[in-house]
């Protein structure tokens, strides 16, 4: 495959700038800069340009450019490590400064290009930073335990209760059929409850946050939990998180008897609350 004519010739031995995110110079240079100088974070360079700072690492362009990169990405050990590093660097920055996170594998070919980006897109980056300043993203996931739901919440439904009586009084082959019927009723009750629970959770959490959105549910293979995920949300909250955690705790108590368990993740860099596209230059 040939390189498109528009791109500059690749210096095969060259180093590029991997951009993890953008922070404000006043915050980052003082606190984060001190940490970096003290060797708290290895291999991270702060590139200051006006009021903004790019959080970068030098990476080998040979590793990150075509044709090596697609090949590299097949190496899942490398891949997972890169993805984790991306997140860990940003989490470290977040301890000291607000940060606008970049997507995985944002690499500049030269320092000049990186600096040009920071200065040309200053306004929109600044606006994105202002939005996340003093705030963090948190994740909330809700899982439901089917057995506990069947034993608790599902019994609020009249049909479920009646059917349960049928199950206990039936014998032999009929008992099996009544049992099946009971399980079907519980399943349809669960189906109804799922949507209702997700709505209630999101409405109340959103009221306690600056902003929020529902994310796609994760299948058990991804979530690593046997219980079914019924809600997955991300919220932008003030860094102290007090009001939000109170709302979450109250919801957790409300939902406990229904077999629902809530899980809080983060603080995350505000991935879900920065613009995806920066707009035309």
């Amino acid at each position, binding site marked *: 495959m040939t390189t498109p004519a528009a791109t500059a010739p690749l210096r095969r031995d060259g180093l590029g700038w991997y951009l993890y995110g953008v922070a404000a110079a006043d915050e980052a240079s003082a606190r984060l800069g001190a940490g970096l100088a003290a060797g708290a974070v290895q291999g991270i360079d702060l590139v200051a340009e006006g009021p903004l700072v790019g959080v970068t690492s030098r990476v080998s362009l040979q590793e990150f450019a075509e044709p090596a990169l697609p090949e590299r990405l097949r190496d899942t050990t490398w891949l*997972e490590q890169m993805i984790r590093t991306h997140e860990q660097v940003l989490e470290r920055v977040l301890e000291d400064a607000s940060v606008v996170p970049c997507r995985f594998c944002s690499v*500049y070919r030269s320092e000049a290009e990186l600096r040009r980006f920071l200065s040309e897109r200053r306004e929109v980056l600044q606006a994105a930073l202002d939005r996340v300043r003093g705030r963090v993203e948190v994740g909330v996931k809700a899982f439901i335990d089917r057995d506990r739901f069947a034993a608790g919440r599902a019994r609020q439904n009249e049909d479920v209760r009646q059917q349960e009586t049928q199950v206990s009084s039936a014998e032999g082959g009929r008992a099996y059929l009544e049992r099946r019927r009971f399980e079907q009723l519980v399943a349809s009750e669960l189906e109804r409850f799922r949507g209702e629970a997700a709505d209630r959770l999101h409405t109340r959490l959103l009221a306690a946050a600056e902003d929020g959105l529902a994310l796609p549910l994760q299948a058990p293979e*991804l979530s690593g939990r046997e219980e079914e995920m019924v809600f997955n949300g991300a919220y932008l909250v003030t860094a102290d998180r007090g009001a939000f955690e109170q709302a979450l705790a109250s919801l957790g108590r409300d939902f406990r008897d229904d077999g629902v368990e809530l899980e*809080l*993740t983060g603080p995350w860099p505000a*991935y*879900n609350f*920065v613009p995806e*596209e920066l707009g035309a230059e």
Partner: protein
Amino acid sequence: MSSRELEGYRSGQPAQLADVLERVLDKGIVIAGDIQINLLDIELLTVKIRLLIASADKAREMGIDWWEGDAFLSKRNGQGELEERLRKLEEAAGLPTSPKQESG
């Protein structure tokens, strides 16, 4: 173990890979144009990475070395099941597809 568990929710677990992925790969600003890897590449990679990780966790659950014997991952075989799934996903997403395997 967090004392918050008593308060009604769990917290403080190490980040699950799935939570990291849904952020690092899907969100965050995209700097189109200036970068070495263009946007289209990233989208294609994202689809691939999704398949990789989904397979990874599934197989870890089953306790096997999931990357072995997987044509897509082990060698540039290009005819594996994952390639086919990727091609379909790309098609569905309206992206230019990987070269289709000629069947006849």
